[in-house]
């Protein structure tokens, strides 16, 4: 990926990621989240992870759709936009964020691996969907089944939580 495209999409990811928090309207936040995910998926693309990149858009676009319905259904949008900024809470949040940033920066700076350049990506004709499939069904068969159980639990949870309207 040419550097200017990388910078463009990296800034897009971060910018819209910030937009999720900064936006006053929850709908704006949700849309920023989608755009941030799209930026992220192009970054995956630049790492030759095509499958993950396209799944990122496919699954999260659907997931954010749910968030959308949630916002429209449950939140009072006008009240959300009217809410004033609490200066003390804002300053506290900024301080915590800054502390976290400094911490992460120091830890990564202390690592030896962080000072070396990354090895170049193995180039060549890698069909990554095939590789994911081969690995998933050869080495990670049990985790795969456990994912199935997790999704099952989530399914039942969703139904139980909205049970009041159902039979």
């Amino acid at each position, binding site marked *: 990926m040419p550097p200017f495209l990388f910078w463009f999409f990296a800034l897009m990811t971060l910018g819209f990621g910030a937009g999720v928090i900064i936006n006053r309207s929850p709908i704006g936040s949700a849309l920023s989240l989608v755009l941030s995910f799209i930026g992220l998926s192009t970054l995956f693309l630049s790492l030759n992870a*095509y499958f993950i990149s396209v799944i990122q858009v496919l*699954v999260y676009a659907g997931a954010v759709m749910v968030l959308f319905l949630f916002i429209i259904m449950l939140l009072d949008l006008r009240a959300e936009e009217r809410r004033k900024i609490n200066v003390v809470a804002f300053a506290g949040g900024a301080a915590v964020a800054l502390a976290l940033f400094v911490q992460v920066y120091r830890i990564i700076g202390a690592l030896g691996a962080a000072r070396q350049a990354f090895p170049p990506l193995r180039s060549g004709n890698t069909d990554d969907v095939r590789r994911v499939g*081969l690995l998933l069904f050869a080495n990670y068969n049990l985790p795969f089944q456990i994912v199935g159980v997790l999704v099952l639990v989530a399914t039942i949870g969703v139904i139980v939580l909205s049970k009041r309207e159902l039979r």
Partner: protein
Amino acid sequence: MLSEYLPVLLHIVVAIGFAVSALLVSVLLGKSGRTNRTKDTAYECGMVPQGEAQPRFSVKFYLVAMLFILFDLEIVFMYPWAVVYRETIGADKTILWSMLSFVSILMVGYVYALKKGALDWKN
């Protein structure tokens, strides 16, 4: 490999350009008429708008969206499975049974949803 994706980017940029320019041309060429108060009210078949503009709706729409994500995840796992199926099935049948068990686990949830009437919109 990555260069295969450059045309996709170009295509999306062209698509965005097309949509935006269509709107722009319409703004430039469109005649503007007189405005009045009734023109600015919501359309409700000629009646004066009643009540809330965005009524509450059934929780079922939300439920369907949640179930969609969960089953979408299942389908996503099926793509790599389908791609490698043909080349591995000759040597080892495990791949068929492993997917069958994965889907059976999820079908428990599906049957539960059906029995609970989560997918029944009649009432």
